[in-house]
Protein backbone atom coordinates (compact mmCIF):
# COMPACT_ATOMS: atom_id res chain seq x y z
CA UNK A 1 0.00 0.00 0.00
CA UNK A 2 2.82 2.41 0.85
CA UNK A 3 4.18 1.85 -2.65
CA UNK A 4 0.90 3.21 -4.06
CA UNK A 5 0.70 6.18 -1.67
CA UNK A 6 4.34 7.02 -2.46
CA UNK A 7 3.77 7.27 -6.20
CA UNK A 8 0.08 7.82 -7.10
CA UNK A 9 0.58 11.59 -7.52
CA UNK A 10 3.19 10.97 -10.21
CA UNK A 11 0.96 8.43 -11.95
CA UNK A 12 -2.03 10.77 -12.15
CA UNK A 13 0.29 13.52 -13.40
CA UNK A 14 1.53 11.20 -16.18
CA UNK A 15 -2.08 10.35 -17.08
CA UNK A 16 -3.03 14.05 -17.27
CA UNK A 17 0.05 14.87 -19.32
CA UNK A 18 -0.79 12.14 -21.80
CA UNK A 19 -4.45 13.24 -21.96
CA UNK A 20 -3.28 16.76 -22.84
CA UNK A 21 -0.69 15.42 -25.29
CA UNK A 22 -3.34 13.30 -27.01
CA UNK A 23 -5.63 16.32 -27.46
CA UNK A 24 -2.75 18.37 -28.88
CA UNK A 25 -1.80 15.82 -31.53
CA UNK A 26 -5.20 14.26 -32.28
CA UNK A 27 -7.62 17.22 -32.24
CA UNK A 28 -8.29 19.10 -35.45
CA UNK A 29 -9.76 22.18 -33.84
CA UNK A 30 -7.17 24.78 -32.83
CA UNK A 31 -9.03 25.99 -29.71
CA UNK A 32 -9.17 22.40 -28.50
CA UNK A 33 -5.45 22.04 -29.13
CA UNK A 34 -4.80 25.09 -26.92
CA UNK A 35 -6.97 23.55 -24.18
CA UNK A 36 -4.96 20.32 -24.51
CA UNK A 37 -1.74 22.26 -24.16
CA UNK A 38 -3.17 23.91 -21.03
CA UNK A 39 -3.96 20.50 -19.53
CA UNK A 40 -0.44 19.30 -20.27
CA UNK A 41 1.00 22.48 -18.77
CA UNK A 42 -0.99 22.25 -15.54
CA UNK A 43 0.06 18.60 -15.20
CA UNK A 44 3.72 19.67 -15.34
CA UNK A 45 2.99 22.31 -12.68
CA UNK A 46 1.46 19.64 -10.48
CA UNK A 47 4.55 17.47 -10.90
CA UNK A 48 6.80 20.25 -9.61
CA UNK A 49 4.52 21.10 -6.69
CA UNK A 50 4.35 17.39 -5.79
CA UNK A 51 8.14 17.26 -5.66
CA UNK A 52 8.17 20.32 -3.37
CA UNK A 53 5.80 18.80 -0.81
CA UNK A 54 7.21 17.68 2.54
CA UNK A 55 4.99 15.34 4.57
CA UNK A 56 3.88 17.07 7.76
CA UNK A 57 5.19 20.36 6.41
CA UNK A 58 3.17 23.53 6.14
CA UNK A 59 2.89 26.31 3.57
CA UNK A 60 6.21 28.23 3.47
CA UNK A 61 5.00 31.21 5.51
CA UNK A 62 6.60 31.74 8.91
CA UNK A 63 4.10 31.40 11.74
CA UNK A 64 4.34 30.63 15.43
CA UNK A 65 4.57 26.95 16.26
CA UNK A 66 5.38 25.84 12.71
CA UNK A 67 8.68 24.01 12.37
CA UNK A 68 8.57 22.15 9.06
CA UNK A 69 7.89 23.84 5.72
CA UNK A 70 7.39 22.60 2.17
CA UNK A 71 10.02 23.61 -0.35
CA UNK A 72 9.31 27.22 -1.49
CA UNK A 73 11.50 27.07 -4.61
CA UNK A 74 9.18 25.00 -6.88
CA UNK A 75 6.31 27.28 -5.78
CA UNK A 76 8.14 30.36 -7.07
CA UNK A 77 9.06 28.73 -10.36
CA UNK A 78 5.53 27.48 -11.01
CA UNK A 79 3.86 30.73 -9.93
CA UNK A 80 5.80 32.59 -12.60
CA UNK A 81 5.24 29.76 -15.11
CA UNK A 82 1.45 30.09 -14.71
CA UNK A 83 1.52 33.79 -15.58
CA UNK A 84 3.81 33.22 -18.58
CA UNK A 85 1.45 30.38 -19.57
CA UNK A 86 -1.59 32.66 -19.74
CA UNK A 87 0.41 35.27 -21.67
CA UNK A 88 1.42 32.76 -24.35
CA UNK A 89 -2.10 31.29 -24.41
CA UNK A 90 -3.45 34.77 -25.16
CA UNK A 91 -1.06 35.14 -28.11
CA UNK A 92 -2.06 31.66 -29.38
CA UNK A 93 -5.76 32.56 -29.18
CA UNK A 94 -5.15 35.86 -30.99
CA UNK A 95 -3.42 33.93 -33.78
CA UNK A 96 -6.39 31.54 -33.96
CA UNK A 97 -8.73 34.50 -34.46
CA UNK A 98 -6.58 35.73 -37.35
CA UNK A 99 -6.45 32.23 -38.87
CA UNK A 100 -10.26 32.13 -38.77
CA UNK A 101 -10.31 35.50 -40.51
CA UNK A 102 -7.84 34.45 -43.22
CA UNK A 103 -9.06 30.91 -43.93
CA UNK A 104 -12.64 30.92 -42.63
CA UNK A 105 -11.99 27.86 -40.50
CA UNK A 106 -9.96 26.77 -37.50
CA UNK A 107 -10.04 23.04 -38.30
CA UNK A 108 -6.50 22.04 -39.10
CA UNK A 109 -7.28 19.66 -41.99
CA UNK A 110 -9.54 22.24 -43.66
CA UNK A 111 -7.12 25.15 -43.76
CA UNK A 112 -4.26 22.89 -44.76
CA UNK A 113 -6.23 22.14 -47.93
CA UNK A 114 -6.73 25.86 -48.57
CA UNK A 115 -3.05 26.56 -48.09
CA UNK A 116 -2.29 25.82 -51.77
CA UNK A 117 -4.97 28.23 -53.02
CA UNK A 118 -3.47 31.31 -51.39
Amino acid at each position, binding site marked *: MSFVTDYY*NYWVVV*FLMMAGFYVVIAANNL*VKKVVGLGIFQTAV*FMMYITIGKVKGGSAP*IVAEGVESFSNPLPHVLILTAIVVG*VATTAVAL*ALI*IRIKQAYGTIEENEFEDKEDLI
Partner: protein
Amino acid sequence: MNEFIDIVLLGMLAITALGVIVLKDLFAVVMLFGVYSLLSALIFVNLDAVDVAFTEASVGAGISTVLMLGTLALTGRKEKSTSTIKLMPLLVVLVTGGALLYGTLDMPPFGDPNNPAHQHVAPRYIEESPKEIGLPNMVTSVLASYRAFDTLGETAVVFAAAIGVLSILGLPKSERTALASGLQSHLVLKVVAKLIIPLTILFALYVQFHGDYGPGGGFQAGVIAAAAIILYALVFGLPVALKVLPPSTLNILVASGVLIYAGTGLVSFALGANFLDYNVLSSDPVAGQHLGIILIELGVGITVFAAMLSIFFAFANRAERKNIS
Protein backbone atom coordinates in the same frame (compact mmCIF):
# COMPACT_ATOMS: atom_id res chain seq x y z
CA MET B 1 -6.93 12.56 5.52
CA ASN B 2 -4.69 14.69 3.33
CA GLU B 3 -3.96 11.71 1.11
CA PHE B 4 -7.67 10.95 0.81
CA ILE B 5 -8.47 14.52 -0.33
CA ASP B 6 -5.59 14.29 -2.76
CA ILE B 7 -6.81 11.01 -4.30
CA VAL B 8 -10.38 12.29 -4.70
CA LEU B 9 -9.28 15.60 -6.29
CA LEU B 10 -6.79 13.91 -8.63
CA GLY B 11 -9.51 11.45 -9.68
CA MET B 12 -11.87 14.34 -10.47
CA LEU B 13 -9.07 15.99 -12.43
CA ALA B 14 -8.59 12.83 -14.51
CA ILE B 15 -12.34 12.66 -15.27
CA THR B 16 -12.32 16.34 -16.34
CA ALA B 17 -9.38 15.69 -18.68
CA LEU B 18 -11.24 12.74 -20.23
CA GLY B 19 -14.28 15.00 -20.69
CA VAL B 20 -12.13 17.46 -22.66
CA ILE B 21 -11.04 14.64 -25.00
CA VAL B 22 -14.55 13.26 -25.58
CA LEU B 23 -16.71 16.39 -25.86
CA LYS B 24 -17.28 18.08 -29.22
CA ASP B 25 -18.99 21.22 -27.91
CA LEU B 26 -16.12 23.69 -27.46
CA PHE B 27 -18.12 25.79 -24.97
CA ALA B 28 -18.31 22.74 -22.70
CA VAL B 29 -14.62 22.02 -23.29
CA VAL B 30 -13.63 25.54 -22.22
CA MET B 31 -15.88 25.35 -19.14
CA LEU B 32 -14.36 21.98 -18.20
CA PHE B 33 -10.93 23.56 -18.58
CA GLY B 34 -11.98 26.21 -16.05
CA VAL B 35 -13.13 23.42 -13.70
CA TYR B 36 -9.79 21.68 -14.30
CA SER B 37 -7.92 24.83 -13.26
CA LEU B 38 -10.01 25.25 -10.09
CA LEU B 39 -9.51 21.59 -9.14
CA SER B 40 -5.75 21.91 -9.63
CA ALA B 41 -5.80 25.07 -7.47
CA LEU B 42 -7.41 22.98 -4.71
CA ILE B 43 -4.70 20.32 -5.09
CA PHE B 44 -2.04 23.03 -4.86
CA VAL B 45 -3.56 24.17 -1.53
CA ASN B 46 -3.48 20.58 -0.33
CA LEU B 47 0.20 20.37 -1.32
CA ASP B 48 1.03 23.56 0.68
CA ALA B 49 1.55 25.74 -2.41
CA VAL B 50 -0.87 28.50 -1.42
CA ASP B 51 0.68 31.20 -3.62
CA VAL B 52 0.54 28.91 -6.65
CA ALA B 53 -3.07 28.00 -5.91
CA PHE B 54 -3.99 31.66 -5.72
CA THR B 55 -2.36 32.32 -9.10
CA GLU B 56 -3.87 29.28 -10.77
CA ALA B 57 -7.37 30.14 -9.52
CA SER B 58 -7.22 33.75 -10.70
CA VAL B 59 -5.22 33.24 -13.91
CA GLY B 60 -6.11 29.72 -15.08
CA ALA B 61 -9.76 29.59 -14.11
CA GLY B 62 -10.41 33.31 -14.53
CA ILE B 63 -8.57 35.13 -17.29
CA SER B 64 -7.79 32.23 -19.64
CA THR B 65 -11.42 31.03 -19.55
CA VAL B 66 -12.60 34.54 -20.43
CA LEU B 67 -10.10 34.76 -23.31
CA MET B 68 -11.09 31.34 -24.64
CA LEU B 69 -14.77 32.26 -24.54
CA GLY B 70 -13.89 35.45 -26.41
CA THR B 71 -12.16 33.34 -29.05
CA LEU B 72 -15.17 31.01 -29.33
CA ALA B 73 -17.43 34.02 -29.91
CA LEU B 74 -15.38 34.75 -33.02
CA THR B 75 -14.61 31.25 -34.28
CA GLY B 76 -17.71 29.18 -33.52
CA ARG B 77 -18.46 26.68 -30.78
CA LYS B 78 -18.73 23.34 -32.57
CA GLU B 79 -15.79 21.13 -33.33
CA LYS B 80 -16.12 19.64 -36.81
CA SER B 81 -14.41 16.30 -36.74
CA THR B 82 -14.98 12.61 -36.79
CA SER B 83 -15.56 11.14 -33.36
CA THR B 84 -13.38 8.08 -33.95
CA ILE B 85 -10.33 7.64 -31.75
CA LYS B 86 -7.24 8.17 -33.86
CA LEU B 87 -4.91 5.20 -33.65
CA MET B 88 -1.54 6.74 -34.41
CA PRO B 89 -1.75 9.53 -31.78
CA LEU B 90 -3.13 7.01 -29.28
CA LEU B 91 -0.14 4.73 -29.90
CA VAL B 92 2.34 7.60 -29.47
CA VAL B 93 0.61 8.66 -26.24
CA LEU B 94 0.54 5.12 -24.83
CA VAL B 95 4.23 4.51 -25.56
CA THR B 96 5.28 7.91 -24.10
CA GLY B 97 3.02 7.43 -21.08
CA GLY B 98 4.41 3.93 -20.50
CA ALA B 99 7.97 5.24 -20.59
CA LEU B 100 7.11 8.07 -18.17
CA LEU B 101 5.34 5.66 -15.79
CA TYR B 102 8.42 3.43 -15.82
CA GLY B 103 10.48 6.56 -15.10
CA THR B 104 8.38 7.49 -12.03
CA LEU B 105 9.54 4.28 -10.32
CA ASP B 106 12.96 5.88 -9.97
CA MET B 107 11.46 9.02 -8.41
CA PRO B 108 11.98 9.51 -4.67
CA PRO B 109 8.87 8.70 -2.59
CA PHE B 110 6.30 11.51 -2.46
CA GLY B 111 6.68 13.87 0.53
CA ASP B 112 9.81 12.35 2.08
CA PRO B 113 11.78 15.18 3.82
CA ASN B 114 15.06 13.48 2.80
CA ASN B 115 14.36 13.80 -0.94
CA PRO B 116 17.17 15.39 -2.98
CA ALA B 117 14.95 18.37 -3.88
CA HIS B 118 14.82 19.42 -0.21
CA GLN B 119 18.59 19.21 0.40
CA HIS B 120 20.28 21.84 -1.74
CA VAL B 121 19.22 25.51 -1.56
CA ALA B 122 15.76 25.04 -0.03
CA PRO B 123 16.98 24.76 3.62
CA ARG B 124 18.95 27.97 3.16
CA TYR B 125 15.87 29.84 1.90
CA ILE B 126 13.75 28.43 4.72
CA GLU B 127 16.25 29.16 7.51
CA GLU B 128 17.92 32.37 6.36
CA SER B 129 15.34 34.30 4.31
CA PRO B 130 13.14 35.40 7.26
CA LYS B 131 16.28 36.94 8.85
CA GLU B 132 17.87 38.33 5.67
CA ILE B 133 14.75 39.70 3.99
CA GLY B 134 12.51 40.08 7.01
CA LEU B 135 9.36 38.71 5.35
CA PRO B 136 7.32 35.81 6.68
CA ASN B 137 6.27 34.64 3.19
CA MET B 138 9.30 32.80 1.82
CA VAL B 139 7.77 32.52 -1.65
CA THR B 140 7.69 36.33 -1.90
CA SER B 141 11.28 36.57 -0.61
CA VAL B 142 12.56 34.10 -3.21
CA LEU B 143 10.42 35.54 -6.01
CA ALA B 144 11.18 39.20 -5.44
CA SER B 145 14.66 39.16 -3.94
CA TYR B 146 16.77 36.03 -4.48
CA ARG B 147 15.38 35.37 -7.95
CA ALA B 148 14.39 38.92 -8.92
CA PHE B 149 16.08 38.52 -12.32
CA ASP B 150 13.71 35.69 -13.25
CA THR B 151 10.74 37.76 -12.22
CA LEU B 152 11.95 40.77 -14.20
CA GLY B 153 12.29 38.57 -17.29
CA GLU B 154 8.85 37.20 -16.72
CA THR B 155 7.26 40.64 -16.35
CA ALA B 156 8.91 41.43 -19.68
CA VAL B 157 7.27 38.30 -21.16
CA VAL B 158 3.83 39.52 -20.04
CA PHE B 159 4.65 42.93 -21.56
CA ALA B 160 5.75 41.27 -24.83
CA ALA B 161 2.61 39.11 -24.93
CA ALA B 162 0.42 42.21 -24.60
CA ILE B 163 2.30 43.84 -27.49
CA GLY B 164 1.97 40.61 -29.49
CA VAL B 165 -1.79 40.34 -29.01
CA LEU B 166 -2.33 44.04 -29.77
CA SER B 167 -0.30 43.82 -32.96
CA ILE B 168 -2.14 40.67 -34.10
CA LEU B 169 -5.66 41.83 -33.25
CA GLY B 170 -5.30 45.61 -33.51
CA LEU B 171 -5.79 48.28 -30.91
CA PRO B 172 -9.33 48.79 -29.59
CA LYS B 173 -10.95 51.98 -30.88
CA SER B 174 -13.95 53.06 -28.86
CA GLU B 175 -15.79 54.80 -31.71
CA ARG B 176 -15.96 51.57 -33.71
CA THR B 177 -17.89 49.68 -31.04
CA ALA B 178 -21.64 49.38 -30.69
CA LEU B 179 -23.17 51.75 -28.17
CA ALA B 180 -25.84 49.38 -26.90
CA SER B 181 -23.48 46.62 -25.81
CA GLY B 182 -23.23 44.92 -22.46
CA LEU B 183 -26.00 43.66 -20.23
CA GLN B 184 -27.30 47.08 -19.22
CA SER B 185 -30.95 46.12 -19.35
CA HIS B 186 -30.43 43.57 -16.56
CA LEU B 187 -31.11 45.69 -13.48
CA VAL B 188 -30.16 43.00 -10.94
CA LEU B 189 -26.82 42.39 -12.68
CA LYS B 190 -26.11 46.12 -12.72
CA VAL B 191 -26.83 46.57 -9.02
CA VAL B 192 -24.84 43.48 -7.99
CA ALA B 193 -21.92 44.43 -10.25
CA LYS B 194 -21.79 47.91 -8.75
CA LEU B 195 -21.60 46.33 -5.29
CA ILE B 196 -18.97 43.76 -6.23
CA ILE B 197 -16.57 45.82 -8.36
CA PRO B 198 -15.29 48.20 -5.63
CA LEU B 199 -14.89 45.30 -3.20
CA THR B 200 -12.93 43.33 -5.80
CA ILE B 201 -10.57 46.24 -6.34
CA LEU B 202 -10.18 46.64 -2.58
CA PHE B 203 -9.34 42.93 -2.37
CA ALA B 204 -6.80 43.32 -5.17
CA LEU B 205 -5.09 46.12 -3.24
CA TYR B 206 -5.05 43.96 -0.11
CA VAL B 207 -3.48 41.08 -2.06
CA GLN B 208 -0.94 43.49 -3.57
CA PHE B 209 0.26 44.96 -0.30
CA HIS B 210 -0.24 41.95 1.96
CA GLY B 211 1.69 39.60 -0.34
CA ASP B 212 4.80 39.93 1.85
CA TYR B 213 3.00 38.47 4.87
CA GLY B 214 0.51 36.03 3.38
CA PRO B 215 -0.23 34.39 0.06
CA GLY B 216 -0.47 36.86 -2.81
CA GLY B 217 1.57 39.54 -4.52
CA GLY B 218 1.74 41.58 -7.68
CA PHE B 219 0.77 38.84 -10.14
CA GLN B 220 -2.40 37.82 -8.34
CA ALA B 221 -3.39 41.40 -7.48
CA GLY B 222 -2.97 42.52 -11.10
CA VAL B 223 -5.19 39.73 -12.37
CA ILE B 224 -7.87 40.33 -9.71
CA ALA B 225 -8.02 44.07 -10.45
CA ALA B 226 -8.23 43.31 -14.19
CA ALA B 227 -11.10 40.89 -13.46
CA ALA B 228 -13.03 43.69 -11.75
CA ILE B 229 -12.75 45.91 -14.85
CA ILE B 230 -13.64 42.95 -17.11
CA LEU B 231 -16.83 42.47 -15.08
CA TYR B 232 -17.54 46.17 -15.51
CA ALA B 233 -17.05 45.88 -19.29
CA LEU B 234 -19.30 42.81 -19.47
CA VAL B 235 -22.18 44.44 -17.58
CA PHE B 236 -21.96 48.07 -18.71
CA GLY B 237 -20.61 47.54 -22.20
CA LEU B 238 -17.22 47.83 -23.82
CA PRO B 239 -17.47 51.54 -24.87
CA VAL B 240 -18.08 52.65 -21.26
CA ALA B 241 -15.17 50.54 -19.99
CA LEU B 242 -12.91 51.95 -22.73
CA LYS B 243 -13.80 55.43 -21.49
CA VAL B 244 -12.86 54.50 -17.90
CA LEU B 245 -9.50 53.08 -18.97
CA PRO B 246 -8.63 54.21 -22.50
CA PRO B 247 -6.23 51.94 -24.45
CA SER B 248 -3.66 54.74 -24.55
CA THR B 249 -3.56 54.85 -20.72
CA LEU B 250 -3.26 51.07 -20.59
CA ASN B 251 -0.35 51.12 -23.03
CA ILE B 252 1.50 53.58 -20.80
CA LEU B 253 0.70 51.47 -17.72
CA VAL B 254 1.98 48.20 -19.30
CA ALA B 255 5.33 49.82 -20.06
CA SER B 256 5.61 51.79 -16.79
CA GLY B 257 5.30 48.62 -14.68
CA VAL B 258 8.37 47.13 -16.39
CA LEU B 259 10.11 50.49 -16.02
CA ILE B 260 9.40 50.66 -12.26
CA TYR B 261 10.85 47.16 -11.90
CA ALA B 262 13.97 47.76 -13.98
CA GLY B 263 14.31 51.29 -12.52
CA THR B 264 14.46 49.85 -8.98
CA GLY B 265 17.31 47.67 -10.22
CA LEU B 266 19.07 50.65 -11.76
CA VAL B 267 18.72 52.72 -8.58
CA SER B 268 20.41 50.00 -6.52
CA PHE B 269 23.03 49.79 -9.28
CA ALA B 270 23.62 53.55 -9.08
CA LEU B 271 23.95 53.34 -5.28
CA GLY B 272 26.92 51.03 -5.69
CA ALA B 273 25.36 47.58 -5.26
CA ASN B 274 24.49 44.90 -7.82
CA PHE B 275 21.49 45.25 -10.13
CA LEU B 276 18.32 44.49 -8.09
CA ASP B 277 20.28 44.23 -4.82
CA TYR B 278 17.89 46.15 -2.57
CA ASN B 279 20.11 46.21 0.55
CA VAL B 280 21.40 49.70 -0.33
CA LEU B 281 17.98 51.28 -0.86
CA SER B 282 17.78 52.17 2.83
CA SER B 283 20.29 52.61 5.64
CA ASP B 284 19.18 49.27 7.14
CA PRO B 285 19.55 46.25 4.75
CA VAL B 286 16.28 44.60 5.88
CA ALA B 287 14.36 47.87 5.44
CA GLY B 288 16.02 48.27 2.02
CA GLN B 289 14.92 44.76 1.02
CA HIS B 290 11.38 45.54 2.14
CA LEU B 291 11.27 48.79 0.16
CA GLY B 292 12.70 47.11 -2.95
CA ILE B 293 10.19 44.28 -2.79
CA ILE B 294 7.26 46.67 -2.40
CA LEU B 295 8.47 48.67 -5.44
CA ILE B 296 9.01 45.74 -7.78
CA GLU B 297 5.77 44.04 -6.70
CA LEU B 298 4.05 47.32 -7.58
CA GLY B 299 5.69 47.23 -11.01
CA VAL B 300 4.61 43.61 -11.52
CA GLY B 301 1.06 44.40 -10.40
CA ILE B 302 0.73 47.38 -12.77
CA THR B 303 2.13 45.48 -15.79
CA VAL B 304 0.01 42.37 -15.20
CA PHE B 305 -3.14 44.45 -14.63
CA ALA B 306 -2.69 46.58 -17.75
CA ALA B 307 -1.50 43.67 -19.94
CA MET B 308 -4.42 41.38 -19.01
CA LEU B 309 -6.87 44.22 -19.52
CA SER B 310 -5.55 45.34 -22.91
CA ILE B 311 -5.51 41.71 -24.09
CA PHE B 312 -9.15 41.37 -22.99
CA PHE B 313 -10.10 44.68 -24.67
CA ALA B 314 -8.44 43.54 -27.91
CA PHE B 315 -10.46 40.29 -27.90
CA ALA B 316 -13.73 41.98 -26.91
CA ASN B 317 -13.27 44.74 -29.47
CA ARG B 318 -12.92 42.15 -32.26
CA ALA B 319 -16.13 40.45 -31.15
CA GLU B 320 -18.04 43.76 -31.05
CA ARG B 321 -16.84 44.77 -34.50
CA LYS B 322 -17.98 41.38 -35.81
CA ASN B 323 -21.43 41.99 -34.30
CA ILE B 324 -21.77 45.38 -36.04
CA SER B 325 -20.71 44.26 -39.50
